């Protein structure tokens, strides 16, 4: 537990009616004890969060918040089929727990049969026994607080002063959250995961707002955030932008920094559901039926993978599904997660699977995991600066923005370059280029990756609200499609 986390595990709080809200562990047990359905899954989420936001060298908004959510998944196994009811409520008091259970059971009774029905996992199932949770079930519940920023805030205040003196303006955002998830099932599973998540985004602009640069990083506790280093990188990029170069739309050799690679590949990962592929409605569908698993996507031996134990980017080692969706099933709650290669040596190796879709596809069960990493060939050690040094003429991006799907058939995405796009000539940055709208498919792009650098932790800017844990290399892509010029600066 960091110095800025506090605990409130066993104390409980007194609510409006005088009834006590006990800890989430007790709430899970209480709900399971009240359950009358054939099977029941209970998830308690305790989340605390703190944030700071600034613009024009001054703080704008801030806040701390706590939330507590109880989700009851009632499962009714009938002759006509298995039905499921899910009720999720915030701020539930002890005297309301049974109400939530009954509502879920009523929803299950009202519901029609579902297709993803499976037996629930128990503590003796292999798929659950292999899990090594980081937190113990009975440990007190930790929370974050505004003090997590104390060192960072002081450094940021210094950066504001330096920016003011240097005729720069700083904009940005920092947040830290701690989500403690407690999962219990009527089959005896008790699993807990504590997930700290943090990020900082720093944007610097020249006083006339004509030049802009961005840097960001993910963090678990803000002790590793180096404001001075981020600010120095921004100053260098603002310096590069003193020379403006107008370029027309077209296909360019382009260097993508790790964050931009992450934004494109995270979207591809989200689009890699087996259900859609099997239904013939995704870029990973095989014409005539089936999936493209086994197909070569890149001539380079790229490996895209997730691993709950990825150093520095660790995430939940088991499935937590509050509701069934196309790529997730409540019946898989508690299923252990392991290292999964989605692309191995350039070949599509796996799609996001539930036990249900795995049964349909005949492929292994590979549920989604909350981190993503790309690795090039084993000798990929180059930094982004090394790639710049080896570039005769090409574009260097900072970030991509407003990425949206244009065509699911090819996974064509559109979006904009943002906060710094530069022309590289003869191994050096020669100036800042106008922004572009791009139209590119990350799947098609994998086939045009010409060079891969060393994999480093990075923050996907566009998707950072939902997905922060990434490690990506910088890459060189041939013929990146810059479709039109954007006047935005």
């Amino acid at each position: 537990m960091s110095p800025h986390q506090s605990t409130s595990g066993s104390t409980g709080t007194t609510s409006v009616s005088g009834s006590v809200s006990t800890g989430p562990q007790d709430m899970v047990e209480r709900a399971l004890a009240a359950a009358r359905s054939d099977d029941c899954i209970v998830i308690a989420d305790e989340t605390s969060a703190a944030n700071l936001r600034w613009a024009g060298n001054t703080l704008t908004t801030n806040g701390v918040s706590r939330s507590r959510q109880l989700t009851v998944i009632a499962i009714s196994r009938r002759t006509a089929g298995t039905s499921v009811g899910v009720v999720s409520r915030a701020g539930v008091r002890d005297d309301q727990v049974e109400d939530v259970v009954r509502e879920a059971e009523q929803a299950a009774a009202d519901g029609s049969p579902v297709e993803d029905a499976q037996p629930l996992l128990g503590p003796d199932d292999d798929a659950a026994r292999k899990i090594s949770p980081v937190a113990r079930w009975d440990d007190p519940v930790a929370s974050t607080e505004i003090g997590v920023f104390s060192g960072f805030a002081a450094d940021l205040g210094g950066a504001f002063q330096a920016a003011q003196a240097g005729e720069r303006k700083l904009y940005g955002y920092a947040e830290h959250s701690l989500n403690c998830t407690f999962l219990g099932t009527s089959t005896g599973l008790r699993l807990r995961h504590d997930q700290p998540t943090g990020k900082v985004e720093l944007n610097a602009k020249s006083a006339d707002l004509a030049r802009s640069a961005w840097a960001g990083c993910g963090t678990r506790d803000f002790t590793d955030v180096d404001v001075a280093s981020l600010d120095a990188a921004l100053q260098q990029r603002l310096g590069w932008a003193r020379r403006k170069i107008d370029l027309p739309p077209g296909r360019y050799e382009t260097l993508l920094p790790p964050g931009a690679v992450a934004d494109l590949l995270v979207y591809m990962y989200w689009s890699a559901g087996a259900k859609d592929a099997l239904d013939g409605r995704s870029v990973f569908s095989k014409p005539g039926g089936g999936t493209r698993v086994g197909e070569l996507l890149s001539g380079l031996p790229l490996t895209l993978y997730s691993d709950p134990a990825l150093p520095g980017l660790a995430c939940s080692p088991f499935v937590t599904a509050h509701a069934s969706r196309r790529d997730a099933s409540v019946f898989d709650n508690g299923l252990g997660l392991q290292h999964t290669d989605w692309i191995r040596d350039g070949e599509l190796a796996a799609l996001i699977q539930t036990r249900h879709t795995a049964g349909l596809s005949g492929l292994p069960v590979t549920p989604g995991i909350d981190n993503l990493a790309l690795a090039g060939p084993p000798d990929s050690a180059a930094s982004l600066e090394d790639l710049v040094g080896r570039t005769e003429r090409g574009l260097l991006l900072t970030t991509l923005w407003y990425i949206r799907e244009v065509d699911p058939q090819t996974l064509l995405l559109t979006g904009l370059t943002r906060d710094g796009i530069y022309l590289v000539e003869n191994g050096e940055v020669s100036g800042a280029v106008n922004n572009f709208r791009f139209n590119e498919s990350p799947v098609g792009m994998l086939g045009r990756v010409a060079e891969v650098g060393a994999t480093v932790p990075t923050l996907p800017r566009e998707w950072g609200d939902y997905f922060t844990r990434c490690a990506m290399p910088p890459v060189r892509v041939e013929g990146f499609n810059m479709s039109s010029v954007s006047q935005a600066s």
Partner: protein
Amino acid sequence: MEPSTDAGTRPGGGEPGTGHPIDPEFASMPLREFAAAALQRARELGAEHADFRAERIRGQEIGLSDGHLETLMDADELGLAVRVVLDGTWGFAAAVDLSPQAAVRAAEEAIDVARVAAAMNTERIELAPEPGYGDVSWVSAYEQDPFGVSVADKLALLSDWSGRLMASPVIDHVDASLVQVRECKFYADGATTALQQRVRLHPVLTAVAVEPSGRFETMRTLAPPAGRGYEYLTGTGWDFDAELARLPDLLAEKLAAPAVEAGRYDLVIAPSNLWLVIHESIGHATELDRVLGYEAAYAGTSFATLDKLGSLQYGSPVMRVTGDRTVPHGLSTVGYDDEGVAAQSWDLISGGVLSGYQLDRRIAQLTGFGRSNGCAFADSPGHMPIQRMANVSLQPAEDGPGTEELIAGVTSGIYIEGDKSWSIDMQRYNFQFTGQRFYKITNGRLDGQLRDVAYQATTTDFWNSMEAVGGPQTYVLGGAFNCGKGQPGQVAPVSHGCPTALMRGVRVLNTAEEGA
């Protein structure tokens, strides 16, 4: 004092309440007691401003895949929040325990946050004045609370709709979804105490056709999300039976359609597509907090800067765009915003010229507008209110043409229905949109569907190319549940009304060529 459950005082607008009681479970809580405790504690600790919010937001999401239930989830969010200004700095804290003690704790925590934040604050926070309205309540207009309808009935309806589409040999898969929200808010700042309730829902059906070659196309219903009750699904405000009956043939035609040839075309754009262009290129561009740079690192800024107010030729002279929080069934419609400001209606663009912005109290004071036009909104009790979008709508021409007349004025062009993909840059210049259906126009008549169409433009070029807007008979209120803004990220529902419109010479892309 017991909460009022009638329409109450509505000095600034907002549609009449429809006699529905505000969620009794929420309204019967001692919310005024919580507020009094929090506001008193904040004052004791030196706050020059404090406001208190409590919210209960019920949501239900139903999803069917090929007629089979896939997702059924009920959510119920409850919490309180205290926002203070201490020595010119914001402080905000939220809690999930609804009790006087929790309210006091949140007030103390908000003060603590303001103290920590003060070291980084160089711009004093001051709020534009707003009259006090006393103890008021407001309920949006709807006939049937969707949370009063059984899940079984909803499933039966969605299953029936799915079945009608699945019966077509053209259609391989059908997704059906229904999202429903009932949002209750209690606000108090010492001068105004407002208790409000809104209901909204969004039903969507998507049909998918897959060819043996592997090529697939999708088409979904154009019914917009609406600030209505369950009656929306049973014939009030939208004819689902008629739309579902047409969908298979429309999808079959799309599957067989020729690819568009990239180039410049005259576009006749239906409201089901144009609302999203309005949202992105006008709605966000006229948010004054964004214009001033408060979203610069995230959602972006705007080309429509304050120095251009009254002079920027945003569009052609036929263009009048309003902001409002008052239109019946609007997703952004309220009685009072989350800073106690009464709902209003105003012009953003008049005769094609930029004439107004969307404001909250802080930004109104900072920029000398004098009074907020009521655009503060927080999407949950855990989030601080920020300036969010009003219903931003393009007004029709009185006695203006119908859609067929607009099409008749085009020799070679494209008629567009339904929204799909959207993207715009961080200053709201360059955008790209696709749609659900694209029809070739030849000599004033529709000439079959086209596929692989996207259009790109720069905002002011696009709106200045608008030769004509349709009449009121073409006007439709579209919108979205999920407009994103702010950090921490917040989503807001918002409506956009517009008539059909005619644009000349817009760049059209072939998306297959773009991705080749």
